[in-house]
């Protein structure tokens, strides 16, 4: 008869009643006064003993969503890779191994060529030319055995202004190790893929943050003030949305100075994506705010004399914040895809910077694709990260849904 958790009734009406009860009877549980009442207008009803804040509620609901949780774990992993790519990757992104051009992936072996259990090692390749087709074949060579070890010395890498030279793993005696093979210049694909995570994610977060901030300010203010300002902002949004995206990106990117510093091009490239990226979220928020503008707590704030700035930043923005977060988790994978695509075409991130897309740029022609299919490895990272961020965003959206009760 008694509820298992006495506090449960306080914050969450059963779905069934909340749908049935009238607007004047919104299915919330009234806490009754002591019965019979001690005195008329006596002490107010008892306050619930414990209850959860909104963020706690969201956390709890999110944890129940397995798909979202897996997404979150992968997202955290990818961000971890981006931050510590220097440590995790055995080589720096520009290190070339001229003895191993287009070398295929190496397998980590724990069984020695003699058939006994051995410490983990990789085998180097012996090159052999097929005399009929003149195709060079790589055959694992038991002679070139390189044992693996943790925390070996290698290329220098920097983090937070400090320089390190230890790597998570490598070969004991400095022999080459290319887990995902090498490209035409002999650069380690695995290392470059990890380093590329950093630029790709940086681009993603930068564009998402900047367009999120611009979009929120434009959207919330346009929804709240309305009138001529709203008219102007919305026509601007329509103007931006009416461009054919792809040709415009290509034109704008091709206008960037080719000879300029890679970092500058990176920033300008991000700027172009922001320029065209803020429109969606601003329109979405405008609609939300327009429906919220008439709500009684906003009018109550007006009635105590609060100014527009206060209403915008203290009342409206916090209440659309969950929308912004959900938008952000959807926007990030979109930016990743767009960046990869443009870099693949060779108009995005420029060397010496590495991104997943710019790595794929080397597989543009069919010949290199058929000769070295392992160079497609960044595709796996792109697919994985897009799926993971989408799964996380989906889970977050469900958890933030105020009508969800399960």
């Amino acid at each position, binding site marked *: 008869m008694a509820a298992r958790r006495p506090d449960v009734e306080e914050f969450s009406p059963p779905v069934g009643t909340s749908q049935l009860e009238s607007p004047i009877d919104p299915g919330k549980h009234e806490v009754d006064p002591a019965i019979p009442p001690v005195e008329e207008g006596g002490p107010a009803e008892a*306050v619930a003993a414990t209850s959860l804040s909104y963020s706690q509620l969201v956390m709890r609901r999110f944890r129940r969503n397995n798909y979202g949780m897996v997404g979150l774990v992968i997202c955290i992993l990818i961000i971890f890779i981006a931050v510590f790519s220097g440590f995790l990757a055995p080589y720096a992104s520009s290190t070339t191994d001229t003895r191993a051009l287009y070398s295929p992936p190496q397998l980590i072996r724990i069984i020695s060529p003699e058939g006994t259990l051995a410490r983990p090692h990789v085998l180097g390749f012996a090159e052999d030319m097929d005399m009929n087709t003149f195709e060079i074949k790589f055959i694992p060579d038991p002679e070139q055995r390189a044992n693996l070890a943790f925390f070996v010395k290698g290329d220098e890498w920097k983090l937070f202004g400090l320089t390190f030279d230890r790597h998570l793993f490598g070969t004991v005696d400095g022999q080459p190790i290319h887990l995902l093979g090498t490209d035409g210049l002999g650069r380690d694909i695995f290392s470059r893929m990890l380093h590329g995570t950093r630029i790709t994610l940086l681009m993603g977060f930068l564009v998402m943050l900047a367009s999120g901030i611009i979009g929120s300010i434009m959207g919330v203010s346009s929804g709240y003030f309305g009138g001529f300002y709203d008219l102007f902002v919305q026509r601007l949004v329509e103007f931006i949305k009416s461009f054919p995206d792809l040709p415009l990106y290509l034109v704008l990117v091709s206008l960037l100075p080719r000879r300029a510093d890679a970092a500058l091009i990176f920033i300008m490239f991000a700027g172009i994506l922001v320029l065209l990226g803020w429109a969606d979220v601003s329109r979405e928020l405008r609609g939300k705010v327009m429906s919220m503008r008439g709500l009684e707590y906003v009018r109550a704030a007006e009635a105590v004399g609060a100014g527009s700035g206060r209403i915008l930043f203290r009342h409206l923005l916090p209440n659309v914040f969950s929308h912004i977060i959900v938008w952000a988790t959807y926007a990030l994978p979109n930016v990743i895809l767009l960046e990869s695509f443009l870099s693949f075409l060779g108009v995005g991130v420029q060397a010496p910077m590495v991104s997943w897309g710019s790595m794929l740029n080397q597989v543009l022609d069919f010949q290199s694709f058929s000769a070295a299919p392992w160079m497609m490895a960044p595709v796996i990272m792109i697919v994985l990260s897009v799926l993971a961020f989408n799964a996380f965003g989906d889970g977050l959206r469900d958890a933030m849904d105020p009508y969800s009760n399960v």
Partner: protein
Amino acid sequence: MSDNKVATNPATNEAPLLEVNNVRVDFRIVDGTLNAVKGNSFEVRKGETLALVGESGSGKSVTARAIMRMLADNAKVGKETSIVFKGQELMKLTEAQMQEIRGNHITMIFQEPLTSLNPIYRIGDQVAEIILNHRNVSKKKAREEVIRLFKEVQIPEPEARFSQYPHQLSGGQRQRVMIAMALANEPDLLIADEPTTALDVTVQAEILTLMKRLQEKHGMAILLITHDLGVVRQTSDRVCVMRYGEIVESGTTEQIFGDPQHPYTKHLINSEPSGHPDPLNDELSVIMEGKDIRKVYKIKHGSFWNRKTVDLIAVNDVSLKVRTGETLGIVGESGSGKSTLGMSLIKLQPITAGQIEFLGKRIDPLDKRGMRPYRTDIQVVFQDPFSSLNPRMIIRQIIEEGLIVNNIGSSSAERTKLIRKALEEVQMTADVMDRFPHEFSGGQRQRIAIARALALQPKFILLDEPTSALDLSIQAQIIELLRDLRRRHDLSYIFISHDLKVVRALCHNVIVMQNGNVVETGPTEDVLVNPKTEYTQRLVDAAINIRA
């Protein structure tokens, strides 16, 4: 409470139409289980009306949905639950068999006629569909049947109405269509879930009379679910009082109202608004005065090239005066312009024409900045306590906001003292300050909303239906609180309401509005006892004389 059976009437020996035994419904929610209905038993006999009465969250609607087997996905019905309808155990039926019962033998009408009809189909077709689903008749025959039903539920011009869409009908008429739909297959049991709650008071009475008449004619049983004791008293034969998912008392209507046994029932009955406002001294100064206030909405229509505007007059040259310490009631049906008038008076909405004077100074030409000095003196409490508090702010921030923007209290400690005082005024403890609004019930939130207004020490408060979203017992407390505050601070109120019972308990004078016009004005008792217009008479009948 499973042994809480309604005493069977020895005169009727036949088996009851519906026998509900030990119904138990649990909801799976974020962290645990919510026991919404805790093992109730009752029965409905042929041709009678049984009312399930309770405040919000008491589980009455869930009980009804359990009978129809129409519960939400996260609901679980208990194993021992048995619902026997005409000798048939409903819990054991398949979904297909249940469909045969729903809409045919047991039908249901919901409280919200705006959303229970599909807006894209003609109303006639929607009713005909029910007939065609359950009976093997031709379309033409079904149409005749629908028109006969429309006549029966007194929809004017039934033939023409047949091909109209729901939006072309008023709320009351839509509820009539819903009743016609429910009657279409001559059910044995009609479940009416708050059938009149969403309707205007005057329409409520008509719908109840219609239901009563139809019940007598067809001999069907009605299970009426409501929170409104007036409705229960007028229509039902027997009553079950529910609280926290349990039936605490049941008996005939006379027994329950004449000699309630359970303290909760007594408490509910005593909570109906009562008493009168404190007498007023005649020699008082005017605090708020409105002269010929007019509010016109321009509605654009027509094509792009041939744009026309129509003026919708929401408030038509209304003048009013509120003296210090006086409570002025503004009553009327929905759409009569009472809220628009109120919001215009406190300048939360611009007016088209007229003058507003506050303490002898004109405030109608002032802009937002110019109004700032007056904002502390003029405050407002809104209708819906669920949307009037920002869900992302804690109570301290909500109340403190007015103090900060008006530069009251120099330090945080000083403001805390003021917040504490305001909370004390509304009889809440200071430990609520760090909580979020969703942790409070409707009545508590309304107290917090009042505290927010009081913190600024206003002279005048606009109360826009502050009690209509609250349960009866909470409503009585809020009314008492408002009376008490008026006495202590010499506050002046404008009280907007459609409920004349509350108005009588609180207001010295009253203005009756209809379609933007004032139809009657004067001291509350005079207006209520001797209404001069037929419109006021209807309002009074619906609210106060409903028992007669």
